């Protein structure tokens, strides 16, 4: 069953098109990632789906409800964790949680089971004001507040932005266990390496969805074989790669450069023959970031 549906959703701010005819579906119980840089339109889509702003065109449904006509029903059934910390800084941890529970006519006790695994980590600080918590603790509290009314769809807008690699892993572990409870989760992120943690992803850039699919299928749809190369002088190597007609694309990826050739193995042979310095080359499967860069060029 489709839990979230977008049909040609568009939204402009003045003359800037924030999102442009966006279509995609999210199935019930799916962990769906919206992946793209700042300014791509991720937050605009979330705000439309959580009924906080109106689309200019198109239709969207959340749990079967129309985002404009049935906005009151949607607000009861979804949880939303905005990218910017939006809890009451001068209420304590416990006061924030019971406040959000009471807004939805419930209590902490009634839905404790759902937030328990996360809440126990901040419970020792339940009398501390939210404004005095560290980033990681704030994030956990915000997640508890978004869950305390047992939503059927959970929207998380960039929960891991600015968070270090260890805490990011912890956060994704929490999402996995929430998914087991049957909650549909839409999560946005600018980190391409988090794509593989989602069941399905949409890659978004400049208000356009470039592709929607499973991470595996997006990778297998990459049109060319990809190679990782390495030499003693990586910046000189990158210039040489970019200057060659045989090379179709060359991008720095940490300790390697990822490249594709313009004319298959023939191009590769010709390029390798013309090399002036030794270079390590190995065949690899592309990452989501390779796919994103490729799709960006194709959409320009």
């Amino acid at each position: 069953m489709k839990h979230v549906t977008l049909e040609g959703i568009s939204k402009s701010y003045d003359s800037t098109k924030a999102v442009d005819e966006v279509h995609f579906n999210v199935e019930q119980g799916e962990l769906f990632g919206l992946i793209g840089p700042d300014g791509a339109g991720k937050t605009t889509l979330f705000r439309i789906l959580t009924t906080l702003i109106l689309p200019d065109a198109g239709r969207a449904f959340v749990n079967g409800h129309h985002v404009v006509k049935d906005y009151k029903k949607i607000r009861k059934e979804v949880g939303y964790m905005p990218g910017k910390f939006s809890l009451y800084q001068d209420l304590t941890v416990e006061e924030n949680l019971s406040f959000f529970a009471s807004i939805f006519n419930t209590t902490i006790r009634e839905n404790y089971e759902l937030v328990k695994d996360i809440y126990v980590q901040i419970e020792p600080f339940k009398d501390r004001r939210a404004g005095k918590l560290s980033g990681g603790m704030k994030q956990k509290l915000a997640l508890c507040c978004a869950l305390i009314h047992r939503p059927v769809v959970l929207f998380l807008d960039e929960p891991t932005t600015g968070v270090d690699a260890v805490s990011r892993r912890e956060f994704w572990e929490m999402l996995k266990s929430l998914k087991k409870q049957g909650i549909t989760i839409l999560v946005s992120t600018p980190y391409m390496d988090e794509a593989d943690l989602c069941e399905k992803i949409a890659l978004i850039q400049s208000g356009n969805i470039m592709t929607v699919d499973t991470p595996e299928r997006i990778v297998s749809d990459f049109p060319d074989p990809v190679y990782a190369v390495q030499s003693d002088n990586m910046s000189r190597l990158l210039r040489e790669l970019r200057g060659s007609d045989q090379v179709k694309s060359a991008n720095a990826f940490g300790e390697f450069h990822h490249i594709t050739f313009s004319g298959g193995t023939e191009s590769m042979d010709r390029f390798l023959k013309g090399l002036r310095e030794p270079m390590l080359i190995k065949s690899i499967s592309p990452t989501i970031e390779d796919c994103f860069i490729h799709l960006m060029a194709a959409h320009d």
Partner: protein
Amino acid sequence: MTDTVIQTEKLTKIFGSFTAVDAITFDVKKGEIFGFLGANGAGKTTAMRMLCGLSVPSGGEATVAGFSVKNQAEQIKHSIGYMSQKFSLYEDLTVYENIRFFAGIYGIERKTIRARSSEMLQRLGLGDQRNTLVGSLPLGWKQKLAFSVAIFHSPRIVFLDEPTGGVDPVTRRQFWDLIYEASDNGITVFVTTHYMDEAEYCNRISMMVDGAIKALDTPANLKSQFQANDMDEVFYRLARRAKRKSY
């Protein structure tokens, strides 16, 4: 050692009973790209604030561009550039107004600003945007411009605090091209990032855990030291050991 631009000796910062930075000792050389990594709450920001002359150490010593962080903070501020994702440029000033403002703060003459800014904007491909409000520029352009403004006064060192957060993958790589260019021109780059592939682009990396530097070496040596396949793994192994949780 005339080419050492940052030198710290047991640099320490204590807030009440909390030791935020715990006796860190390291050197950074001229033109080096130095990655300053660590988990949230490890003490990176506090250390960086001391090196920028914004916070007085509780103990130890550090010199930045030859000046002591203890009593020559003003001279340090003249010798460094700073850019972060959070604070970079004024959105409601034009591109040129921002350049003039920041260059003016560093005491550069109008005439020089005018000449150097045209050349800089041409190089960035922003020649036509001189009078555009910075707020209306795409994020990627803003970040590239912010970096160029941060090194406009030819500082000895530029501090970059998560400069590429949220930027698209193509612009992120273009940004690193600018970093390499600055380093080739002898500017030392001191950079923090959450992208572990970017850690690979640094000449050397330090890893902070619980206020102390727990590892410092080239990316290749760190990987072999920790028998890790990539920097992500090195980071994970070190940061996981942290006892201090930033409550």
